[in-house]
């Protein structure tokens, strides 16, 4: 992820969207988390808590991507299905070029292939792909590639 960012940050806008915790630790009796390691994080209950967790994440993973915080009602998760993890590549017309989601949903290698194709085509999907607004059938619930 960091390597991809370093390689394409001038041509592509990267964001790491910090979503709600996938495996939070249980809350203790006093409301604090029963933390056993720095990675033990309770489910965040406010944007400020989520920002603190995101900071720990950046420090732990040693990434420097610009970070956005998902809203408490999970607009990104609801829109893109990025929970517990996900990747989305969007072209300059606002069209989906690649998505993946689920455990292990962060797929920088697959995203790089799509980005190379996009950049070769002025940042846009080919004209042969029609713009659709509807929600597709359930059968397509797998990573999508061009």
């Amino acid at each position, binding site marked *: 992820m960091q390597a991809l960012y370093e390689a394409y940050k001038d041509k592509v806008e990267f964001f790491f969207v910090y979503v709600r915790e996938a495996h939070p630790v249980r809350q203790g009796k006093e409301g604090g988390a029963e933390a056993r390691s720095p990675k033990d994080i309770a489910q965040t209950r406010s944007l400020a808590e989520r920002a603190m967790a995101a900071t720990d994440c950046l420090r732990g993973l040693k990434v420097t991507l610009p970070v956005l915080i998902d809203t408490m009602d999970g607009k990104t998760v*609801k829109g*893109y299905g990025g929970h517990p993890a996900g990747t989305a590549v969007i072209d300059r017309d606002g069209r989906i070029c690649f998505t993946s989601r689920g455990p292990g949903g962060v797929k920088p290698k697959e995203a790089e292939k799509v980005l190379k194709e996009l950049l070769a085509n002025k940042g846009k999907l080919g004209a042969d*792909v029609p713009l659709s607004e509807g929600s597709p059938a359930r059968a397509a619930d797998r990573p999508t590639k061009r």
Partner: protein
Amino acid sequence: MVRRLKRREVRVLLVCMAAVFALLQMAAMPRDPSRRPGGRTRAPVLTVGQKAPDVELPRLALEKTKDGGVLGRVSSEKVKLSSVWAKKPVCLFMSSYT
């Protein structure tokens, strides 16, 4: 005796027919793909070429503390994805630390 038995049979037959009718109706109902068992909603599946959902999210602002550490807070600046993808392609990685 014969008459009572016939009534019971008719009643059983009617109940069976109602059950079969109800099952057929349930099978014919269109299923919502975004619905999970238990009533939880699944995010819609996105396909290539589909319009990407536009969301507006706050940035994480990082500040250096006096002791050399880094403190993260929610910035007042928000990023609207549609205003970003109008300039450059966008790559989103979504995850949490845990």
